[in-house]
């Protein structure tokens, strides 16, 4: 319905900009090796990926809550009709039912919008799936502001709710490579997994041959002023901002977090400990209970004594509008990050919307050698 502005690049400003090293003494060369290509956009990545994934895994079954095309499992249904089960609008039943199948050795991949799982059927998830630690994959669609469907459809507090569940592993996707690799990551988990999945037309931010890894963030840049941790669709926004911020001499460590639970990545602690001005988290979720909270817990436990700044939906329910509008309204976009960075370092960087819109994002390939922490 509405396209991300990921494709609406304007390159003119970028070429004209000169680099201001406002805080050059902290600037370290970031490790990113940006490829010389335009950002690739892909559609229905999960639809193809799941079919491929299930080809050699007969234990994979899909349960669908009357949102089959919306959750990109129509291709699976058409390819493996005997492994596809229409559950209609019976979400609470569907979660417990999945638990039953998992007890018999199948791995149910439950597909519906995230809200209709974690909100509608929380007790069922807890007692029928999480408590017995069953191999159920909950594939939750429409995280946060990615739907104009209003409060009833927006999963803005799923991480806060679900991070509290014992036994549960939580993964979040931010690009096509994440989506392609997330099922493989979940495969290794002997217990239930909740996946925040993005759908439709999505960018490839990360090189296809560098899959998501369980419990390890992607290192997008290294620096010493600020440690920036982002998840999901916020990472694309963050990359847009960090591009310009680096030009202005801000030295950032930027990590893209994909495992929200368990949350013990040493890279996160190290980044926070080395951040001169502080840590910023950025997530498509309320600031309660998600990435920001997870980072706060980790920092406190490790005695990392710098300030933490959480970018996310403030403590409020939101409403239906386009993703770009909501990201601006609730301060989840590149500009919001720039403003926060300015506040954190106490300097104005003279960056405006045009500068950010001008950023040409390319698919990121990490520098493997330097990445070894």
């Amino acid at each position, binding site marked *: 319905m509405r396209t991300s502005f990921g494709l609406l690049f304007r390159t003119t400003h970028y070429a004209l900009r000169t680099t201001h090293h406002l805080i050059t003494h902290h600037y370290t060369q970031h490790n990113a090796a940006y490829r010389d290509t335009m950002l690739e956009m892909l559609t229905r990545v999960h639809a193809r990926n799941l079919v491929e994934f299930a080809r050699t895994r007969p234990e994979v079954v899909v349960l669908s809550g009357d949102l089959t095309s919306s959750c990109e499992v129509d291709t699976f249904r058409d390819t493996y009709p005997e492994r596809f089960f229409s559950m209609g*609008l*019976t979400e609470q039943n569907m979660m417990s039912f999945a638990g039953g199948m998992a007890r018999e050795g199948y791995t149910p991949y439950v597909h519906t919008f995230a809200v209709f799982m974690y909100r509608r059927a929380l007790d069922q998830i807890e007692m029928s799936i999480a408590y017995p630690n069953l191999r159920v994959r909950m594939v939750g669609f429409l995280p946060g502001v990615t739907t104009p469907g209003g409060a009833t459809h927006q999963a803005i507090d799923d991480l806060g709710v679900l991070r509290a569940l014992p036994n549960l592993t939580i993964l979040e996707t931010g690009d096509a490579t994440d989506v392609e690799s997330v099922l493989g990551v979940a495969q290794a988990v002997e217990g239930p997994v909740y996946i925040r999945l993005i759908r439709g037309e999505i960018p490839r931010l990360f090189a296809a041959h560098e899959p998501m890894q369980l419990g390890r963030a992607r290192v997008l840049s290294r620096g010493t002023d600020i440690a920036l941790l982002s998840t999901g669709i916020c990472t694309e926004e963050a990359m847009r901002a960090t591009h310009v911020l680096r030009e202005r001499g801000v030295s950032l460590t930027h990590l893209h977090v994909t495992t929200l639970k368990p949350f013990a990545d040493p890279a996160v602690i190290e980044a926070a400990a080395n951040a001169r001005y502080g840590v910023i988290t950025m997530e498509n979720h309320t600031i309660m209970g998600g990435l920001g909270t997870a980072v706060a817990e980790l920092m406190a436990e490790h005695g990392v004594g710098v300030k933490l700044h959480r970018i996310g939906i403030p403590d409020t329910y939101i409403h239906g509008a386009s993703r770009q509008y909501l990201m601006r309204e609730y301060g989840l976009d590149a500009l919001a990050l720039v403003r926060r960075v300015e506040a954190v370092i106490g300097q104005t960087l003279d960056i405006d919307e045009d500068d950010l819109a001008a950023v040409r994002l390319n698919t990121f390939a990490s520098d493997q050698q330097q990445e070894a922490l």
Partner: protein
Amino acid sequence: MQSGSGLGVRADANIETSCTLGVLMASFDEVRQAAAGIRRRVLEQTIRANGGYLSQACSSAELLAMLYTHYMRLGPSLGAPIPPPFQGAPSARNPHHVNGGVYNGAQAPDLDRFILSPTHYAMALYAALIEAGRMSPEALAMFNADGSSVEMIGGEHSPGLEVTGGSFGQAISQAAGVALARKLRGDTGRVWVFMSDGEFQEGQVWEAVTVMAHHQIDNLRVVVDVNNQQVDGRMDQVMNIGSLRAKLEAFGASAVEVDGHDLEALAEAGETPHIGRPLFILGRTIPYRGIDLLHERYPHLHYIRFKSDAERERYQEQLRVMRDE
């Protein structure tokens, strides 16, 4: 009070409120016109935005028109003809939130209340509000616009919406709570709920019916758009629920099933006595009624987005015909 042209005049309708068509109960011609207007306006908007919940308007047009011009006793709208932008979610810190129920008039002991459950029917409801003179036609141009309260899937700040429905099966329980509270208070006004048939797959709906029967909540009436559709296609193929009427009766409710496009049958259904039980008016409907073109897409009708300019042009032609009628 004034009544319409004879048919369907309700014996107990002796209160002084006037609905915005100028009469409490419209003539069937007027109801028919309102129903045609609902279809036409939703088609217009679907063409304008290249997408919309068009089929729902086709199936429910008569049901919504009956609610707003015949069934419900509502006071005049208290909402702004052009709805204000979204003013923030309800909160103790937010004095600006306005509940969309104001478009259904004042809350008074003798007046009815309306609750929309499947909020993707919002578009059809907005059109009904316009047909009933409760909202300005220009409001539809704000449909699904960023910052607008005229949302695609309505929230309780959207015109005509009093509770947060949309997560299926919750509105009927909320309405039952409202109805019991009104009974306790001695209100004579009723609570009307509009539901879709897919919702009856949700367990909560049956919990609500059980509770209403147990507590003899009989000041509540539910109008159901039985179009046999859900997102994945035909309900009987996606998840068959069998006979809704038989099930509802088994759960202790009164249920009457009629052709949901037949105004006289619907009017008669509204007269069904239901002492000590809630009443369900099941309107069997056709999901492409009034826009035959839609039949080509059957049974995939949930959200209509035109596949080509040529297809859109055919719908444009259909709109021209409907405007002339």
